[in-house]
């Protein structure tokens, strides 16, 4: 009985990672990898989708692609900052250049990763962020 409660508690405190990226393949493989590491993933394909969700307190981090329809990933990050929400963010970019990277870092991104990247590197960064929290 007791162990059951513990398991339930563990399920509850499982950290959530928000992933905002239109690339379906990436969504699937990243969430699989993160799930294996006991991290829940919620996926969105646009900034607007994420903003319509209520951000939860157990949200551990945000992974966001720069190139999104309408509002781009960095604008989304700036918007979240303006709301006064502190959400550690890793920015991904498929056509990264220096000015985009600088924009992301100025918007207080923790890291900026160019695609293609090794998925395990990203997972490790996410786990580091969760640990720091």
């Amino acid at each position, binding site marked *: 009985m007791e162990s059951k409660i513990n398991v339930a508690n563990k399920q509850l405190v499982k950290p959530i990672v928000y992933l905002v990226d239109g690339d379906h393949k990436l969504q699937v493989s990243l969430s699989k990898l993160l799930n294996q590491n006991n991290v829940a993933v919620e996926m969105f394909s646009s900034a607007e989708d994420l903003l319509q969700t209520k951000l939860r307190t157990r949200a551990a981090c945000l992974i966001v692609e720069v190139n999104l329809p309408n509002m781009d990933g960095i604008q989304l990050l700036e918007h979240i900052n303006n709301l006064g929400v502190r959400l550690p963010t890793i920015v991904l970019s498929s056509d*990264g*250049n*220096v000015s985009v*990277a*600088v924009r992301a*870092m100025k918007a207080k991104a923790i890291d*900026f990763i160019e695609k293609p990247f090794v998925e395990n590197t990203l997972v490790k960064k996410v786990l580091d962020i969760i640990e720091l929290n």
Partner: protein
Amino acid sequence: MKNNQTESLSTSPMVHVVDDDEAVLDAVGMLLDSIGQRNTCYKDAQVFLEAYNSADFDNHNGCIMLDMRMPVISGIECQHRLEQMGCSMPIIFVTGHGDVPTAVEAMKQGAIEFIQKPFREQQLIDAIQKALQINLKSQKRIEKVQETQAKLKLLTNREVQILEAVVSGKANKVIAIELHLSQRTVEIHRAHVMEKMGVKSLAELVKIVIDASPTE
């Protein structure tokens, strides 16, 4: 090293320009002169770091413009060393060979701007003005903290005890019992603490003490 002083006021901020390209140094120096901004040019990071370590160097009031690719000591390396030496001046990177990982690394280390050559003059001026503003704000904060710390040194051991108890939210009655004093004595100490710290209310006292305590 060339010293372009357009103003002799020692209080006006100094822009330190570090670039191994003489043409860039000249152009930036002239640009800054034209807007009446004090500036000093250095032909590489070594020369700059030597100057930084000299006794008469004002290492608070100003900002630093660093070229990324320089012989012997790169811009990033220079940034690392400045950080180790506790430099509080904001850094602007300017580079002709920017790549994403370098830019990300520089920003992670706390650079406030990363500009690629060729750049518009206004872009640099904006960045420098922003850097100087940030510098001014942090200067003011540091000054306040130092002021508070100086005042804290004037307190007696007993007063420090009382201050800590007051700031942690304990009532006079509780403090009196804990320190085996009469309530009246605590009140007197407390009044002395307020007077020495130059504050009129408990809220003010708590604020300046918290502001001055080291952040982890």
